[in-house]
């Protein structure tokens, strides 16, 4: 064993949360070491500390036995630590070689041919062959990632951090990436690999460290573990029991007759502008009086699915049927009219107009209701009265209904959105991450309102990355992975372990 990088009691807190709780970690020379964990487990914070984007509150780092102080990414690179970001940091209309030399010391007159030669050599050595003169915007996603890796290698990095590198790759591209990683490992590079895809992690890694709630749960060597143990470590074994207890307390109504299908997708497919599939062969059904949960790792296609269901995007293949009618043309306003409510995942980006009054934000998706306007004139007094009443019944805490909604806390903002979306006749409510970032009381309040809406006969789709929440709320569950439904089951048959495996792309 030959440790290259050692972390000792690295600690980092953000307001209200301990992101990294005294982390000890070693990375050996020529090793692929995977950090496994759910969203919010603290993986990204840790990697950002190593690559110099964050400064830890306490703790120390040793590089080949010597203390290492990294204050910014430039110092990290100077010490041979390079990060390949999940979201590429490339300039699309510059060439590959221009992107690679960006930020490296160069003589005033660029030695283009020399650089080109260096890039070619690196490429041949690690299987990263690329034409250095192509523009980045003309490359595929997999090729763009190669540029990112070349960038780091060109700067002489010995330690590479890859943040969920396969999240955006096709299976074939992922295979090619593994080969590159093996080659780099053979060459003496050390790799920190972040992922939550169980299978690739087990195949690829020399060691696996599981993070949960900012703490290290366990470290396992190659061949000493299996998927189900890792899933348990990642998600926690006790979650399923606590979920059941709370469910009994929360369920307010007996099961409704769940006969009418409100939402139906048949072989639905959606393409990205660049051609790859965002959604493929989705078959899904949501009935009245039913909460359907959609489980999946972040970025598995939930956002695209939501956009289709509320009418922001039209399908490329398949059919979308709402209340028995096929929706051929995507139209948000038409679907609002037919009874679709939507609590968007990114509430600040989509859900509100931040500088408009709280009361005005109540009419965002209900503008043409005659309650608020007549012949195009807004009825100001009615808008205010309605806002006041809704704020009272949803317990929105704000100084006045006339302050800009952007000044409210996340929880109060979310209550406004829920109040707005449930205040007109609805058939279907899509709730994406409705309680993310909210405190316990606000979460319980919102979940109760959703259960009440279910009791009133609404069809509800709940999108969440939190399995506990899904098991607590849902009657039926779908699991989405890489834009496809990979499993479905009634709530009674749902097991956290099984769902966890499905979410990570492992067939159960």
């Amino acid at each position, binding site marked *: 064993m030959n440790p290259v990088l050692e972390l000792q009691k690295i600690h980092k807190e953000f307001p209200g949360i301990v992101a990294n709780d005294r982390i000890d970690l070693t990375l050996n020379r020529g090793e692929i070491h995977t950090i496994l964990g759910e969203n919010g487990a603290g993986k990204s914070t840790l990697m950002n500390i190593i690559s110099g984007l964050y400064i830890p509150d306490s703790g120390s780092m040793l590089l080949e036995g010597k203390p290492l102080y990294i204050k910014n990414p430039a110092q990290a690179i100077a010490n041979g630590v390079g990060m390949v970001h999940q979201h590429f940091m490339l300039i699309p209309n510059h060439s590959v070689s221009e992107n690679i030399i960006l930020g490296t010391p160069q003589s005033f007159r660029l030695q283009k041919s020399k650089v080109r030669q260096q890039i070619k050599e690196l490429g041949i050595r690690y299987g990263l062959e690329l034409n250095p003169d192509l523009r980045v915007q003309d490359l595929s996603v997999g090729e763009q990632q190669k540029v990112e890796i070349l960038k780091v290698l060109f700067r002489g990095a010995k330690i590479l951090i890859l943040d969920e590198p396969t999240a955006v790759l096709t299976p074939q591209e992922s295979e090619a990436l593994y080969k590159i990683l093996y080659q780099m490992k053979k060459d003496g590079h050390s790799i920190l690999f972040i992922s939550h895809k169980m299978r690739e992690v087990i195949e690829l890694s020399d060691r696996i460290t599981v993070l949960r709630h900012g703490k290290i749960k366990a470290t396992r060597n190659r061949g000493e573990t299996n998927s189900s143990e890792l899933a348990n470590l990642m998600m926690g074994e006790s979650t399923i029991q606590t979920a059941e207890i709370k469910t009994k307390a929360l369920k307010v109504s007996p099961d409704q007759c769940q006969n009418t299908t409100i939402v139906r997708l048949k072989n639905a497919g959606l393409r990205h502008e660049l051609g790859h599939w965002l959604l493929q062969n989705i078959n899904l059904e949501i009935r009245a009086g039913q909460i359907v949960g959609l489980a999946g790792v972040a970025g598995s296609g939930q956002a695209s699915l939501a956009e289709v269901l*509320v009418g*922001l995007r039209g399908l490329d293949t398949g059919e979308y049927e709402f209340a028995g009618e096929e929706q051929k043309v995507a139209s*948000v306003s038409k679907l609002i009219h037919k009874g679709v409510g939507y609590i*968007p995942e990114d509430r600040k980006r989509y859900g*509100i107009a*931040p500088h408009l009054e709280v009361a005005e934000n109540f009419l965002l998706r209900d503008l043409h209701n005659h309650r608020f306007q007549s012949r195009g*004139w807004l009825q100001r007094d009615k808008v205010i009265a309605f806002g006041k009443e809704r704020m009272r019944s949803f317990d929105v805490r704000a100084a006045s209904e006339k302050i800009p909604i952007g000044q409210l806390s996340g929880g109060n903002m979310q209550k406004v959105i829920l109040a707005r979306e449930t205040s007109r006749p609805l058939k279907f409510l899509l709730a994406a991450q409705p309680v993310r970032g909210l405190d316990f009381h606000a979460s319980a309040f919102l979940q109760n309102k959703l259960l009440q809406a279910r009791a009133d006969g609404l069809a509800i789709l709940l999108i969440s990355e939190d399995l506990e929440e899904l098991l607590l709320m849902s009657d039926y569950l779908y699991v989405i992975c890489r834009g496809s439904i990979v499993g479905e089951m009634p709530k009674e048959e749902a097991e956290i372990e099984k769902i966890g495996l499905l979410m990570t792309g492992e067939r159960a």
Partner: protein
Amino acid sequence: MFELERRLETPLSVQVVVTVGSIVLALILGSVLLAVVGVDPIEAYPSVGALMFFDQWGWQDLFLKMTPLLLTGLGVAIAAQLNLWNIGAEGQLYLGAIATTWLALEYSEALDAHFMLPILLIGTFVAGGMWAAIPAGLRSWFGVNEIITTLLLNYVAISLADYLLYGAWRDPSTLNFPMTRSFGESSFLPMIGSTTVHWGLPLGIILAFLTWVLLKSTTIGFQIRVAGDNLSAADYAGFNTKNLLFIVLVLSGAVAALAGMTEVAGVHHRLQQNFSINYGYTGIIVSRLARNHPIGVIGTAFLLAVIFVGGELLQVEYQLPIAVIYLFEGLLLFTVIGSELFLSYRLRRRVAV
């Protein structure tokens, strides 16, 4: 040591103090400028001020200059509600003047003022809207940047006016001057009372208030405010944001075009070359200084008129070059926009760590 701290909200009192303070600062900096060119500011400011505000010629000129600034500024401000930059107010003003001139030359002998004035108003408004529909359509449906298209169309409109003035519309009796013959009297905008100020000014003020009412009290105005605040939220709400962009930019151009009508029908009574002293471009400053508020535009149009007329007086009384006006304009823009830092931040004494 001091440091800047972000304000959570900006009270109205702070807005007033900061704005007035920045204008005073511009005047102080301007006095340095005057001193450098050999004019005593302590003598010049009061005498120019007296001529401007108390002399009949002075205040009438002030309101005459304010009118086109108000209309072009309002036009720019309307576009800014959706974060669009209408740099084309100058061209829209020219096109409005061309439309007015055509209608006036064609019909003012046949129709009396009761018919003629509404025809001029509506005709110019429609023509300006159609002109602005070119960049609006390109922006809405093809994503072409409106800053570039509106800017380039300025040159087209100005050249079109030149083409007509040197060709079909040139009045042979003026020998070789590029101007049309005078309109018939039914196409003259009437004056207010016994002054030389025409009804274009009240028209501009009414339009500013109408714009405000449209934004505040109608469903279309609500959609504009939402889309201007957060375009993604407007999509999420099911608003047709492409149509909104189109409508707003067309409206913006139509209002700016009215400035051309009030100039040729209210002041010159004919179309002539260089009748606009950059009113359209200055409209951008008018709107920007008012933070694109449709009613604030009334105040900033007056302020810019003060600079225009004050500059003219400085030219006449002290034989200063016209560049001095532009320098003043620049100084004012610099201090007012620079002062906006203090609207969102405040100075705080740094506590020793």
